[in-house]
């Protein structure tokens, strides 16, 4: 029997997840010793027709990174689902929608307008591409841009998740080793730690014993001097470590940056943003509504951007809806 075949594909993502694979460095050679890479458009020359020619389930596993926002991405994701025995959502965008998922806060028209007409980097011609054209009797069509961004498992069935923005090399290597060992975790498993980041955080010991209370929330660029020896939350930075899955090796914390939650929620949490909100709100040290409001306005000017940075498509409310706002007179008895 030949070596197992694996594939990689990217959808709506920045390419950082592809970098994460290259970050394996020498270990990548170990991996290529054991598997055949049969599809990886970013790094190697394969055509879609090569995949189409495969038999169903011919690939052992396919790693898909990126969210789904174009019809093309959906089609290829579905094709790869058929051709692979295991589909692994690789990185935050495939796992929870990721940063592209924040597009769900805007309508499709608004995004187009910003991108082609009103944004800071538009060309002077103001040309907006047509979805379809015919030239010399040949028709060309661009893929459809959906009105909302989805995570991979909202489009196809996903067997495993490798979280992270981008997944760290140790997580990637663990995932590949687990897959090749044949000793597979239960379907739907997230291949990272099952405890919160705080458990592995080097600053955990500096957390106050009598409970966390913070009087002031600050964004990291507003802190003049970040003390790299003390828990970032106690310094007033919005760190989502307490509600985020660990396994990343506390890379951001070691770089004096608070956790933004790219590894997503721990098992059993339905809505990551709501849980993060719940935690941060509970440790604010104030009992006065006006003061609380002030602390929140200063430290968290954009709550959805803070709490749902990577998980908006997987949140309960999924996307923004425009409700008509009218002034309502409230009758009192």
């Amino acid at each position, binding site marked *: 029997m030949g070596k197992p075949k694996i594939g990689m594909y990217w959808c709506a993502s920045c390419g950082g997840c592809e970098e994460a694979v290259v970050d394996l460095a020498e270990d990548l050679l170990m991996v290529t010793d054991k598997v055949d890479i049969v599809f990886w458009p970013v790094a190697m020359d394969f055509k879609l027709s090569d995949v189409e020619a495969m038999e169903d389930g011919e690939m052992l596993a396919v790693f898909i990174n990126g969210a789904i926002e174009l019809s093309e991405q959906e089609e290829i994701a579905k094709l790869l689902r058929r051709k692979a025995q295991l589909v692994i959502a690789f990185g935050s965008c495939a796992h929870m929608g990721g940063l592209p998922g924040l597009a769900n806060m805007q309508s499709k028209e608004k995004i187009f307008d910003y991108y082609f007409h009103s944004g800071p980097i538009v060309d002077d011609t103001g040309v907006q591409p047509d979805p379809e054209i015919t030239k010399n009797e040949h028709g060309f069509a661009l893929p459809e841009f959906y*009105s909302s961004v989805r995570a991979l498992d909202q489009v196809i069935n996903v067997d495993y998740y490798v979280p992270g923005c981008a997944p760290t090399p140790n997580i990637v290597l663990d995932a590949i080793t687990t897959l090749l060992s044949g000793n597979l975790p239960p379907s739907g498993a997230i291949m990272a730690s099952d405890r919160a980041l705080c458990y592995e955080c080097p600053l955990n010991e500096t957390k106050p014993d009598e409970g966390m209370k913070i009087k002031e929330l600050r964004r990291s660029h507003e802190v003049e001097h970040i003390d790299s020896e003390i828990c970032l939350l106690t310094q007033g930075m919005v760190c989502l470590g307490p509600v985020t899955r660990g396994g990343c090796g506390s890379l951001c914390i070691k770089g004096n940056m608070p956790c933004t939650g790219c590894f997503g929620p721990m098992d059993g949490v339905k809505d990551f943003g709501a849980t993060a909100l719940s935690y941060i709100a509970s440790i604010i040290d104030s009992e006065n509504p006006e003061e609380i409001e002030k602390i929140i306005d200063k430290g968290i000017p*954009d709550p959805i951007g803070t709490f749902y940075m990577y998980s908006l498509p997987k949140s309960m409310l999924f996307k923004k*809806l425009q409700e*008509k706002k009218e002034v309502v007179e409230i009758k009192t008895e």
Partner: protein
Amino acid sequence: MEEKFNPKIIGIFCNWCTYLAADLAGISRMQYAANLRISRVMCSGRVHPEFVLWAFKKGADGVLLGGCHPGDCHYIEGNYKALRRYILLKKVIGQFGIDERRLRLEWISGSEADKLRRVTNEFTETIKSLGPLPNRDDIEVDAFDESELKIVEPEYVTS
């Protein structure tokens, strides 16, 4: 509106104060808007923001949270936690495009059945004037074909 809009309002009340007030209102045969569906939690500090988002997702038109007056919490500071979450949560639902007036927090003690009646009636009026909130599950987002989407046990290779 042709048909009269009858809003669905979810009340999440704390066991020690607001739920008692609702109980008292019932015993005292007080009449108030029947749009309120009450569920009881031990403390308003138990109200996870997920509860509220879930209610809105499932088509509740308004959510009313009830807790003890500041300083009266049976668990000392649960209601302050509720207050802070409420303030932050209001901003989040606003960003999701839900009118912030659809979420309301009130301190109602066990003896204030009359306040409960007043708040419920007031809140129902507010929601009636705001109109119905679309059920998020019914929103047609895109022409995604979800029929193939189910948990399938894959065939594992063992070698």
